[in-house]
């Protein structure tokens, strides 16, 4: 396999974005180029997927010195878990372009999308903590631009709020990263921020480790968001443009989960185990709490915002279940949920474009006006609710099994609370889409060819992964086993 392919995936969108900024290309040209770039990346990702070796270890490593005085390296690589997130992003972004095609009419928008894709890929592949932090923060700026420039309502305030909120978490993580680097220096006599080196540190006391662990957790919990760190969520989601919500909910939030597994698990394996019950509790509480919050919403976007947070709590519970089934379920739900929630937000965006922002009670009867729209909307919705035959079902089943293995009572709670999604989703679907209640929805236009083309791969994945999950799970299983056996020292039991 070719070395350097990961760097191409990281830097190609960024380079194109700079080129677009300099060249006098109009909005449409930029959009077309950006779409082509995302397709190129999709095929590169497909190439990686086909040539991926089934080991639990890092592949396609690239390692160059960056700031030598402090042993900081440009160090990237990919394992099973990053692979599926890569595939997810590589599939979702071209689809998103197709669905946003005529939505946004500004060059900056597409340039920001390119920058974001670079930032996401960089975050995904980084194996050096400083490099990771670099991309993690750099990812924020284009999102800042998209929400602030193209949002609605009190967008300037909500942009500042979400920026400051996420910065708070990541700055404390930054201090922790530096602390780890210094601890490594004092123990081994040389500087390094490389993940493989940092995990060897033995000198940090338990009390300090807890503080470090919590500051890492804070950064990721805000991004995900886990229960008490969600207060930025509602306002940001409802004031963001469609593309912004899509990025935040189906990509950035999943990266929070990903980073949790990538960094917190190997650096603090004992604390990961020790805090697992608490975090499962937090996740399940979030599932219920956000679910109930979603029931009481009158705006679809706000409802989906809470629904998304609710499922992310469930994913977190799966990740912390400390067995292969639960963790694979978590990874599976990362993909399933990203696809379905991303698709739903994009569809809601199309509806908003046609009808303006409306509450659920002002909608209704869309099914007649836009049957294709309704069809895709229904499939995404069924996936979120977890109807058998969709990948959402498989994922939720795996997580519930994992939680049963963790503790029977936890399993019972999980199995019952996960049904909360069904209550609000079906209610909303009936009121807003199916039932004709005399509201004027004549301006609703059905999906065009491009939009259908963008949604088809997502539907294919939802059903494909739902009917034949093994096709997907075998790529990630060695990695999960590696996490459990080599890092957490828990016996494998699938």
């Amino acid at each position, binding site marked *: 396999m070719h070395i350097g392919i990961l760097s191409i995936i990281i830097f190609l969108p960024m380079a194109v974005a700079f080129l677009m900024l300099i060249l006098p290309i109009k909005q449409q040209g930029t959009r077309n180029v950006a779409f082509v770039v995302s397709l190129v990346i999709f095929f590169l990702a497909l190439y990686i997927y086909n040539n991926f070796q089934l080991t639990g270890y890092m592949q396609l490593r690239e390692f160059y010195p960056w700031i030598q005085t402090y042993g900081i390296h440009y160090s990237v690589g990919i394992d099973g878990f990053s692979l599926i997130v890569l595939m997810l992003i590589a599939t979702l972004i071209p689809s998103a372009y197709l669905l946003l095609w005529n939505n946004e009419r500004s060059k900056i928008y597409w340039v920001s999308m390119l920058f974001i894709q670079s930032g996401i890929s960089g975050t995904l592949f980084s194996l050096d903590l400083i490099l990771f932090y670099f991309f993690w923060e750099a990812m924020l700026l284009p999102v800042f631009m998209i929400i602030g420039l193209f949002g609605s309502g009190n967008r300037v305030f909500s*942009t500042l709020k979400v920026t400051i909120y996420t*910065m708070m978490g990541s700055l404390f993580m930054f201090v922790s990263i530096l*602390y780890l680097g210094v601890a490594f220096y004092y123990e081994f006599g040389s500087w390094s921020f490389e993940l493989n080196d940092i995990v060897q540190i033995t000198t940090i006391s338990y009390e300090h480790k807890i503080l470090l662990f919590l500051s890492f957790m804070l950064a990721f919990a805000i991004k995900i968001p886990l229960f008490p760190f969600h207060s930025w969520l509602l306002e940001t989601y409802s004031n963001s443009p469609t593309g912004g919500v899509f990025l935040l909910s189906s990509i950035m939030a999943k990266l929070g989960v990903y980073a949790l597994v990538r960094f917190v698990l190997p650096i603090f394996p004992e604390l990961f185990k020790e805090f697992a019950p608490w975090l499962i509790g937090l996740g399940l509480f979030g599932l219920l709490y956000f679910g109930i919050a979603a029931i009481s919403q009158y705006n679809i976007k706000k409802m989906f915002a809470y629904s998304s947070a609710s499922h992310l709590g469930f994913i977190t519970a799966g990740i912390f279940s400390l067995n292969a089934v639960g963790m694979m379920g978590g990874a599976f739900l990362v993909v399933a949920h990203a696809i379905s929630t991303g698709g739903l937000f994009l569809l809601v965006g199309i509806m908003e474009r046609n009808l303006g922002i409306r509450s659920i009670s002002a909608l209704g009867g869309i099914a007649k006006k836009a049957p294709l729209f309704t069809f895709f909307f229904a499939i995404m919705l069924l996936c979120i609710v977890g109807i058998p035959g969709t990948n959402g079902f498989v994922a939720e089943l795996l997580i519930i099994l994992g939680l049963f293995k963790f503790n029977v009572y936890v399993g019972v709670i999980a199995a019952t609370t996960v049904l909360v999604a069904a209550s609000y989703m079906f209610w909303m679907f009936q009121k807003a889409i199916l039932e004709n209640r005399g509201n004027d929805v004549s301006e609703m236009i059905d999906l065009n060819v491009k939009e259908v083309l963008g949604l088809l791969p997502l539907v294919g994945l939802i059903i494909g992964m739902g009917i034949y999950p093994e096709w997907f799970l075998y790529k990630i299983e060695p990695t999960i086993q590696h996490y459990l056996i080599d890092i957490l020292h828990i016996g494998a039991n699938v």
Partner: protein
Amino acid sequence: MNWLEFSYLLPLFIIGCGAVILMLLSPVERLSMENFSVLTFVFLTMALIGNLYYFGELRTSFPLANIFSNMIIDDSYAVYFDSILLSGGVVTSLIGTHYFQTKRKFKKEFFSLFLFSLFGMMLLVHANELLTAFIGLEIASLSLYVMIGFQKFDTRRVEASYQYLVLGSISGVFFLLGTALIYAGTGTTMLGEIGYAVDAQVGKDTSLVLIGGTFILMTFLFKISAFPFHNWTLDVYDGSPLPVTAFMAATFKVAIFGFILRIMLVDLDPIREMWDKLFVFIIIATLMYGSFMAVIQKSLKRMLAASSIVHTGYLLIAFVSIGVAGESASSSIIYYLVAYFLSAMGAFGLISYITSNDQLRVTYEDFRGFAHIHPYMAAMLSIFMLSLAGLPGTIGFIGKFYIFTGAIEAGYTVLAVVGVTATFVSIYYYFKLIALMYFYPYSDLENVPPLRGITPITIGFIAIAVIAGGLGNTFIAYFPGVDFLIDNARLSYMSLFIK
């Protein structure tokens, strides 16, 4: 006359002579302001080239000892600081070109004073004796007092100048008192010898040196505007012409740190830890006060002034860490000075350029929607704000990285956390400007000069340097990047200890 040794002092000599020549030429009617600004630039560039010739060489010498009797030192450390100072001079003169040409009330003597103040700063960095340092400090300060109040028709300028003059003079007196006490305690004012004397006294009574050192530190804290000597900063920075503010904020601090690091690292090293607790308190107060003031400002200039107090706090974090992590902490100070110098110079310079045709108060609101009419200037201003806030990808991030790493290395994790909290607050007041510039559709700002001439080009180069300094040198081969600057900072640190 030893020509080699003379060549070591050539930059200092060029600047000193240049100042005198400009002063003598100022009555000549035929020479215009433009001629003077070109002449200033020529002197500065000559000195900078002469200085860069010795850059990166590990050396300590006392040039022309028979004339200066070891009172002036020339080592890699001084060369490094001279380079920053002279670059500061060059950048100020380039950025100021447009400002001084449009605001006709400046007189030609201004340029002479400018070189004099730079001369004073360089002398301060080269000083190997306390009284020489005092002379350098006062030359620099006195010139600055006049530069601030040069437009005497404007009451704000005069007020700022007078406030700075009175308070600055009092702080200067502390320096003299400190010098006298140290002389009483050790019997010498030469830097190296103070060190030996203090070494010999450790364990016995060092109170005279301690009190003397405290007085000198008070002057130092005043000049870098740390708590509790910070009150003048907002008014003086706000009242000064913008290029002068930039010069004060970026360059003068460099010189002060240049001197105080020298004396702290070498001479007062044995008793330095006695001040540590005091410094921890000062740092926390400085960061908190600066952040608070910056958050509540409506005027951009006052916000930048208040945020300079916060940056002083970051620098002091590294300063207190030099006890344990000497090398990394002091090189992090030097690196951060460069980082702050570039970002602040760019920000102040660009704002002065944008508003040079108007008598604006320069508030946040003036910049509403600015990006849609002047995208390039807005992009540059954003880069400087991001760098001041320490976002990854800018030189400010690497600077903060070094400072906080040094602090943790020295065991001051609490200070690193406080520093990060201040950084977190700073996101608000820096991002507010970016948000205002980009997220509003129209702009009321009129009379913005077009992107033409030497000033915008200079600022553009600074913006590129800010990015390049943040990316390191993996990306651009043979370009002076992060490693180059930090390695040379370490080299200059080592030169302090060559006996």
